[in-house]
């Protein structure tokens, strides 16, 4: 999973808990799945009970309580569509913490009550595709729209050349640093690290009794994996190659070791503040860390929540002789193939994100560079944003010119691949495990899974 919209919804840990959620989450959760049996037979298998004239659109942006610009973008976009179409779209807001780590979507799909349109992260793509609930958007998409997307972005959401999701944004990762922390440690911009060794050395100088020199995500989950992959790619490694596990590689081992070294040498925290690695305001901004790996969304977070905080960004440091790399996250709109009216849902998605007319480009520009900071996934939108000077200076300019060109789309690993990797990262980072052994163990688990895997290609 890539970035999330606002720090508040990035939480995952602020998930609302109640006794009821324990029922849902714990033993009762399974029971909830059990309850799906009668529901399912009642509505006759895959056929949906929805309304063909009204499509539900579940998302974690709007209409939210804060009525912020991101919520407004969703509300306005849907209102615009509803004005001109017979099949109406109805937004249902699910708080980010429930959407990302909760059970709302899963229980709905299990009981055949899934939404017609929803948002999906690369990490969830295969689970839903293999579950047979993603609708081919192809017929709704014009060739012109397809060509407008940057290379690789649609491929990451396609199977056999058919497009199943339209990305709404690109979110690269970089290293943020606090100017104040560098100054107080007597360091200058010339000291900014380019390699892993330099990172450890500089972090040592930045670490004191109140502050850590550098910070990576520490909580286990899709987000941590997402932030770790670039370090593996820098050594030209990958988790899977040619249908087999390639995780048992020097590239993965050295990346696992690097994260472990930051903890061993005590220059990085074992637990992040606030909402974790994606939360720059709580960590870097509060002075708890001097450098922090995070994503492009942090630019708008800092802009709104830490106006006077002075910071800069650099590309993620690489190992000696390694190549620059970053991970390109980003959520996509998808349609439920078992929904009430999948064709209409596909049309809505193609219109909302893929329209190539002036209004469509403007709508995307608003989302990508006005209400949120990301990189536009479409060339025409990039041009429109450039014309308005969106990437003319500062961190965003650096993202466009230096960082994003080194990026790869976030891998779409199913849970069975993600989990062994997550365990290896956690063990090496926080439990002092031997990286070579951890990588070998994970590779073996991935291989075992791949032997019987029958779903769409993993990439």
């Amino acid at each position, binding site marked *: 999973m890539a970035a999330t919209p606002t720090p508040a919804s990035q939480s*995952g*840990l*602020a*998930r*609302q*808990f*109640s*006794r009821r*959620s*324990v*029922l849902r*989450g*714990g*033993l*009762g*959760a*399974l*029971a909830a*799945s*059990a*309850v*799906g*049996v009668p529901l*399912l037979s009642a509505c006759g*298998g*895959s056929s949906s009970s929805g309304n063909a004239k009204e499509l539900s659109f579940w998302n974690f942006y709007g209409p939210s309580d804060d009525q912020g610009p991101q919520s407004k973008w969703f509300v306005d976009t849907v209102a615009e569509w509803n004005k001109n179409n017979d099949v109406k779209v109805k937004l249902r807001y699910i708080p980010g913490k429930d959407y990302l*780590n909760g*059970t709302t979507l*899963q229980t709905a*799909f*299990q*009981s*055949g009550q899934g939404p017609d349109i929803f948002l999906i992260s690369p990490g969830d793509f295969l*689970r839903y595709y293999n*579950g*047979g*609930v993603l609708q081919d958007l192809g017929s709704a998409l014009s060739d012109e729209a397809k060509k407008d997307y940057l290379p690789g972005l649609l491929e990451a959401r396609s199977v056999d050349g058919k497009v199943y999701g339209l990305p709404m944004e690109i979110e690269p990762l970089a290293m943020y640093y606090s100017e104040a922390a560098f100054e107080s440690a007597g360091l200058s911009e010339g000291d900014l690290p380019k390699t892993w060794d330099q990172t450890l050395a500089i972090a040592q100088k930045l670490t004191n*009794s*109140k*502050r*850590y020199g550098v910070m990576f995500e*520490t*909580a*286990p*989950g899709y987000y941590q994996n997402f932030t770790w992959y670039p370090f593996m790619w820098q050594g030209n490694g990958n988790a899977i190659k040619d249908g087999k596990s390639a995780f048992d590689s020097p590239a993965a081992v050295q990346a696992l070791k690097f994260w472990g070294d930051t903890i061993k040498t005590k220059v990085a*925290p*074992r*637990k992040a*503040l606030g909402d974790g690695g994606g939360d720059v305001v709580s960590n870097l901004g509060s002075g*708890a860390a001097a450098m922090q790996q995070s994503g492009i969304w942090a630019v708008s977070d800092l802009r709104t929540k830490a106006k006077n905080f002075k910071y800069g960004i650099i590309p993620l440091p690489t190992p000696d002789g390694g190549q620059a790399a970053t991970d390109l996250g980003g959520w996509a709109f998808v349609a439920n193939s078992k929904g009430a009216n999948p064709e209409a849902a596909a049309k809505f998605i193609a219109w909302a994100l893929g329209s190539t007319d002036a209004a469509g480009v403007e709508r995307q520009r608003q989302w990508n560079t006005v209400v949120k900071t990301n990189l536009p996934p479409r060339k025409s939108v990039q041009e429109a944003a450039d014309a308005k000077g969106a990437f003319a200076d500062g961190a965003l300019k650096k993202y466009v010119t230096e960082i994003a060109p080194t990026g790869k789309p976030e891998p779409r690993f199913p*849970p*069975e691949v993600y*989990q062994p990797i997550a*365990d290896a990262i*956690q*063990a090496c*980072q*926080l*439990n002092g*495990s031997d990286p070579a052994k951890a990588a070998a163990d994970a590779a073996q688990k991935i291989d075992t899974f791949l032997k019987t895997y029958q779903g769409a290609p993993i990439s």
Partner: protein
Amino acid sequence: MTRKRREALAAYAFLAPDTIGLLLFVAIPMVLAFGVAFFKVDGFGNYQYVGLANYKLMAGDDQLWASLKVTATYVVAFVPIAFVVSFALAMLVRNHFKGIGWVRSAFFLPNVVSLVVVGLIWQFLLVDKQGALSKLLAPLGLGDVSFLGTPSLALGTYVVISVWFLMGYQMLVFLAGLKDVPKELEDAAEIDGAGPWQRFRYVIWPLLRPTSFFVVVNSTIGAVTGLQAFDLVFVLTKGGPARATSTVVLYIYEQAFTFNNMGYAAALTTVVVAILVVCTGLMFGFTRGGRFDED
């Protein structure tokens, strides 16, 4: 209507909401889970009968055994500590003194706070380097200790937080038990020359058996399936660092909602229920349900 009849009706009325809730949200789903355990469920509404395959999977599932071990460790540490602490508290606030209401409330307060808030409070206290506890320990050279970020410390930290969270409730249960100990018996023992320790050992302690039994069984079940075994872990560490706090209930949740293995998760649930039934049965056996010898 006789008075007895009226009282009985009132009792049923008071019990009804909980009973209906238990039936609807616990008992019926639990029975259904036993059924689902025989299916492969993909999370998209498809069911495929697989017989006992889900149960056979468990033998080779290292993660399951690791999570059971985490849970067992937690139970073995939490239950006795919570017992001793809450019992000591109950004895402490048993007798009336000035400001007792305040003291009792202070101990009970954590129990009425939502788990999210509990998580946030402790996260705040335990923040690496900048947390209140780190600052307190800094003069001892322990300012760098990360209580929730170190695998060997995380589970112990959960034990402390859970004890803090539940001690007020258990204290109340003990207080209720202590109220049932007839004052005359204590007085009689005192007249016979029994000191405070002897009065405790031979009068209070034996009469508290049913209460003690209830507390032990209740906190064991709570430690395996309760709020602190899932919500707190989910809020604070999501099972980390390095799976050190991955309890069995959290593992079941992952199987159901991360891996979409809902059938397997259901099978795991039945096993956890079975383990709890056996444990409770053993406790019943050893203590005769906490009943008094003469019953």
